[in-house]
């Protein structure tokens, strides 16, 4: 049997046993997200469609699945959703400005050598694609942090309804500070795991520090890590602010519509 199918089966059983119905939903969400990603990539091969616009649409769909399907539609997930969209737009601007000049799009010399039979003049703007790649890499972390903060603040406000907006924002930021360390850790180790082979490869081939830092492969990886991390942290104040603002404004909606 195929490794991937067997692992997916094990994951499904574990999620169902430990997470019950929500576990099943979590597993299905992974599948839906994979589907959305594939369709997005296939649509990107069409030169007529702007890949960044496509990525934004895909990210909105993915956030819907992560927030409304796994967590159900309620005040908490709606706040998290709006915060996610705001952060995405902000991040796209930042990445757009910075990636433009840094020449990290496309493939490094090391990768090109392995693909000699390929045509590289394929008519897709790889400068746009690198932005899409960075944004897509962040979307999971952004929705995760957004829902954690908005549901924690929802609980806090429910237990202390006399809090004003500023106090509520402050406690949201306190929750955010706890999440910050673990989220950056998750992303960091995931990237290190993904690029362990690359690190060993650089060492084995005796690249100097200067060569490593300026190579396209390393530079694009390092920058992806930093931008992804920035996005995953930027969502914290945005969600805290938006939750504080909307919870005080729509007082009666807090904790309503909750099935649990």
């Amino acid at each position, binding site marked *: 049997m195929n490794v*991937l199918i067997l692992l997916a089966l094990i994951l499904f059983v574990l999620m169902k046993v430990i997470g019950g119905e929500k576990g099943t939903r979590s597993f299905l969400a992974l599948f839906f997200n994979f589907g959305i990603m594939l369709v997005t990539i296939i649509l990107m091969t069409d030169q007529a469609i702007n890949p960044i616009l496509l990525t934004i649409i895909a990210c909105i769909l993915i956030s819907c699945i992560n927030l409304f399907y796994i967590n159900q539609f309620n005040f908490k997930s709606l706040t998290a959703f709006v915060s996610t969209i705001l952060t995405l737009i902000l991040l796209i601007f930042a990445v757009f400005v*910075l990636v433009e000049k840094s020449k*990290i799009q496309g493939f490094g010399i090391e990768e090109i050598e392995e693909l000699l039979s390929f045509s590289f003049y394929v008519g897709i703007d790889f400068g746009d694609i690198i932005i899409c790649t960075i944004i897509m890499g962040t979307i999971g972390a952004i929705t995760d942090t957004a829902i954690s903060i908005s549901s924690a603040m929802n609980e806090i406000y429910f237990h202390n309804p006399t809090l004003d907006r500023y106090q509520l924002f402050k406690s949201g930021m306190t929750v955010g500070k706890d999440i910050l360390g673990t989220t950056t850790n998750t992303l960091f180790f995931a990237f290190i795991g993904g690029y362990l*082979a690359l690190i060993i490869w650089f*060492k084995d081939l005796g690249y100097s520090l*200067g060569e490593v830092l*300026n190579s396209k492969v390393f530079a694009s990886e390092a920058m992806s890590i930093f931008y992804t991390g920035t996005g995953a942290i*930027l969502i914290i104040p945005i969600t805290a602010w938006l939750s504080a603002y909307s919870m005080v404004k729509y007082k009666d909606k807090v904790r309503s519509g909750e099935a649990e």
Partner: protein
Amino acid sequence: MNIKWKNKTFITYGLILLSMVLSILFVQNNFYLYDKPIAEVIETTVTDEEETVDSLSNTDQVIDQTVIGEIKNGDHKGQRILMENQYSESGAADHEYQMGDKIFVSIQNDEGTHLTGNIEGAKRDTFIVVAAWLFIVTVLWVGKKSGLYSLISLVVNVLVLMLAMNYYTEGEDVNLFWICSGLVLFFTVFSLLLVSGNNKKTHAAILATVAGTFSSLLIAYAVIKLTAGEGLRYEEMAFITRNPQSVFLASLLVGSLGAAMDIAITITSSLYELTEKNQAIALKDLKTSGREIGKDIMGTMSNVLFFAYVSGSIPMILLYLKNGMAVNYTLSMNLSLELTRALVGSIGIVLTIPISIYTAIYFIRKGRVIK
């Protein structure tokens, strides 16, 4: 008191800003550190423009440009150099150079008034530093002191990783798996102690993280052995100088660690928080609460890993598809390892939930007996 505190923050922010400006200025002018000649582009002219159509009727625009640069280091410092560059609109394997870009060059001919040479590649260190500062400033602004701690933990972890990899690549007969196991232990103990201090809660989280990470790896190993690795395309690992399977297993171990740590600390702290609020809470209730929290976080957490791993393959998948490769072949060539990483990491996430609950409850019960 208040004024003093404000002064202190002011100084701290000032220092951060100063080191940011200084380090960016430094990498913009660090030409003397490099042996290879570096040129700053001062003039570019387009000499030819042509539309290309490849065998699969992809159209692209290929442009020739002449680039004149000024050498910034070495024996030829200050001299002008003339280079040719060819780039395409898509820019998959080439770049357009503009005024002000800094590039590594090789000098071919230094006779006559003009130097001539070739472009070797862009100088990218400045952009890495700028991206790093964007991250650092965001972390410190949002996280303040805990942001600083997570930065310290990241920096120390990178340094230790580099040392370990040095040891691995230089030593003979060193087993990568044992090195990575040692690394996992160090990363877990160091990061968690730094984040939540030396106490029972942290000890429980450390135990749960290590147990969760290694059991997910054990499952991955068993699955790979059982299926004889069917469906895993190791040839996808473009950068490989060692036995791909052992590098891959080691990368699974490190890759699952962060997520397991996240789950372990979240569940352990919540359970300790609950016992602090209510000393008499029944262990059974703790178990139920732990499971509720676990249910809430496992779905979105596995998505964090999924997108972090899979999105990196987008450019390569596009190149394959545009070169007329079948979708099936493209996906299995480009995603099999990434999907395995995401699946093993997610298995680690789910397994760490019950493991954290039981370790935390064990520690809490032991604490109660002593009291």
